[in-house]
């Protein structure tokens, strides 16, 4: 098998920080690009200091979540407040294809790295910017955190228990989402460059990218003037029933069950052995099931609670019913499906410890992605400054001593 990855030969300079920007680099890196994060000990990224740490020893190079979320990126350390550091960053950009950043609008310009500046260094450079709400517009400077960005899209208003208040999603789903989709934007621009020789400055508003997920509910507003609200786990368009999560035997164990067609309904009845309690005549059609969904779900819940979630999922699946156990974090590592697909992998860190991160979550027929843990600060300094940029040993050492490379 040809082991070459599709983006081999593409070089990316990544100023991205925290989560979304590093995931852009990760995605391109997994796909074969050479990606260098530019960061500095002068201002260590907060995610490098997030516990838990490898072997319980706190250090910016030992954060386990950071290593997973930043895997695929390399790292060079430059204190950009120093003019010589800025020049080195530009020298690297001159030899690169793509620059990624997720600062607020205007920050790159203030650093002296705005698009016009970069074009002067390399005419066909692709600058990928992913501010929360875009590069322009009245709310361009809106402050959000990853976990609250979704509130500006309508998405948060849909999450919660049926008829109740919105419940927050407790982490930034939008960060990896925008990070992965951001890599698609970069690929589109690379393709355009291949077609035309032109680079460009991509304006990737995380708000707009994520709001596409609200599309189905948005159409209900456009067509009917309705603005949806929380509906537990019911179908987003009220088109399937049952469609929910039901309690199983044990502490906080649940199963998801969906019936999308009459055929699947009959499969469910067969799996249930056509019980008396499920008054079949009242639920014979999809319309009836939808009209009486609360009753239907309550009845099903009384049945599921007698079963182990995994056993019940296997039983229902053996009849062709769409059902999965609701997994918790502790279930993931040993789950036979994720084990078989090598979703999570144990890797050896250069500092000598082993840790578990996620691997190639998409499988390519040609070429296997070799995933290494996220970089130590400045891990690729030698390679970039000595080999790529050709600094003399002496000058390299000086710049390190003077904390320009830092």
């Amino acid at each position, binding site marked *: 098998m040809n082991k070459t990855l599709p983006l*081999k030969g593409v070089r990316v300079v990544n100023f991205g920080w925290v989560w979304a920007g590093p995931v852009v680099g990760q995605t391109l890196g997994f796909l074969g690009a050479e990606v260098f994060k530019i960061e500095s000990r002068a201002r260590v990224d907060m995610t490098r200091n997030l516990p838990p740490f490898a072997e319980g020893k706190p250090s910016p190079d030992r954060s386990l979540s950071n290593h997973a979320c930043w895997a695929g990126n390399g790292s060079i350390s430059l204190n950009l407040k120093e003019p010589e550091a800025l020049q080195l960053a530009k020298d690297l950009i001159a030899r690169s294809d793509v620059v990624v950043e997720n600062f607020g609008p205007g920050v790159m310009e203030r650093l002296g790295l705005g698009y016009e500046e970069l074009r002067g260094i390399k005419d066909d450079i692709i600058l990928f910017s992913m501010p929360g709400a875009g590069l322009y517009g009245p709310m361009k400077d809106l402050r959000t955190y990853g976990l609250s960005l979704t509130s500006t899209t309508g998405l948060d208003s849909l999450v919660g228990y049926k008829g109740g208040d919105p419940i927050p999603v407790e982490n930034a789903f939008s960060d990896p989402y925008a990070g992965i989709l951001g890599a698609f934007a970069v690929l589109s621009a690379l393709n355009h460059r291949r077609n035309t020789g032109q680079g460009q400055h991509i304006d990737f508003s995380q708000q707009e990218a994520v709001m596409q997920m609200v599309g189905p509910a948005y159409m209900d507003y*456009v067509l009917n003037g309705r603005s949806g609200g929380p509906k537990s786990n019911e179908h987003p368009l009220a088109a399937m029933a049952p469609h929910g999560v039901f309690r199983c035997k044990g502490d906080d164990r649940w199963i998801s069950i969906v019936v999308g067609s009459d055929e699947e309904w009959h499969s469910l009845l067969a799996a249930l052995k056509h019980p008396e309690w499920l008054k079949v005549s009242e639920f014979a059609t999809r319309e009836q099931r939808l009209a009486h969904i609360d009753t239907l779900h309550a009845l099903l819940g009384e049945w599921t609670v007698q079963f182990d979630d995994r056993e019940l999922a296997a039983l229902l699946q053996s009849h062709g019913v769409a059902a999965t156990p609701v997994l918790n974090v502790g279930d993931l590592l040993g789950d036979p499906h994720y084990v078989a697909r090598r979703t999570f992998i144990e890797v050896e860190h250069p500092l000598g410890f082993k840790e578990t991160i996620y691997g190639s979550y998409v499988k390519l027929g040609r070429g296997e992605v070799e995933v290494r843990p996220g970089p130590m600060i400045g891990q690729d300094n030698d390679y970039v400054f000595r080999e790529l940029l050709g600094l003399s040993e002496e000058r390299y050492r000086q710049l390190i001593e003077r904390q320009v490379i830092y």
Partner: protein
Amino acid sequence: METRPTGALSGIRVLDFGQMVSAPYCAKLFADYGADVIKVELPTGDVARTMGPFPGDVAHPEKSGLYFINNTNKRGVTCNVASEAGRALFLRLLEWADVLVENNLPGRMKSWQLDYADIQAVNPRLVMISITPFGQSGPYSAWNGYDLNAYHLTGASSRYCGRPGEMPLEHGTFSADYFGAISAATWGMAAVYGRDMVGGGQQVDVSCAEAIAAAFIGGQNIGGYAQDGRFDKRTGVGMPQGAPATILPCKDGHVWMLALEPGQWNGLRQVMGNPDWADLDIFQNMKTRAENADVIYSFIVEWTMQHTKMEIQEKCQAAGCPITAVYTVAEAAEQPHLKARGYFVDMEHPELGRIRNLGAPFKLPASPGGPARGAPLLGQHNSEVYGGMLGLDAAKLMALRAAGAI
């Protein structure tokens, strides 16, 4: 009339042989940026056509909002791949295409003799993007499943959404489908971009569940669990380690209340009019505020209930706090910022009339994208594609129609 798009992906030919959300949205991303996308539907049509939202809730296969929003810019043909003549026609389309996007369960593609081995034999340069809930391999690959089932297999709901001990929640939309779609578009596009380098086409195997389990949940949780054997579950508040960091009610809805850093907290105090309670020692850092979350949230809610979400957003943002309104879908759809950025586009559709659609998910200034043409009617381009593009004559087309192949 063959359309000649000029976008970033112009020259790339895509077949969308998918239904509902994941594959259609993935193919829509290609279509947004100028790829020539043909949607191939079974004669019964994409199941999304049977789901709303419909204008006035009256079901009509050409008036589904879900179908419309995920199928813009595509041409549409019908093809009964289960028949011999239909399958032969589908193979002709495969010869034309660079990319096939599909989301049929693996067993179904096999039953049509359209798994990757069959397809590779017809067009070895084709990139086949397969998006399913569980993927092409592993013990659950033969399982039946929908978006909800995939989402709850990831740990996301157990970890991050819902009240403790109560039902874990999805996001109220097709979150797993969308996450799978963007992962597939990115990895698939890379496979197209690097096709010559890697030596030809390949299958790109995307599991919606795996992508979320890895890139969202795994990133933040799996290293710690693997090392220490401990893991967390949902709490029902936005961020249990710091406060304020959750969704709170206000006079006309809800706000995402976030003020963790000292500057943000002081900004919020000022906006609230420096109430006496805010001077208490226990409220002077985010951790002790979190330890007294019930108390502080009840104080803050007394204030938020007297103000509207937009008042709160504007005043708090001006004071340096990342506090935002929880926009309803209607409010997001009317947001002046998004309007100023041209995020909404007016489109015409023969059955739906004038539709204000969501525009491009990101802005490529040198090669603008986004929806321009409405979703195709069922079989709308049969003559154009099969006659004009593949060169079948009228008699042959009529025979195919008579045989039920198209």
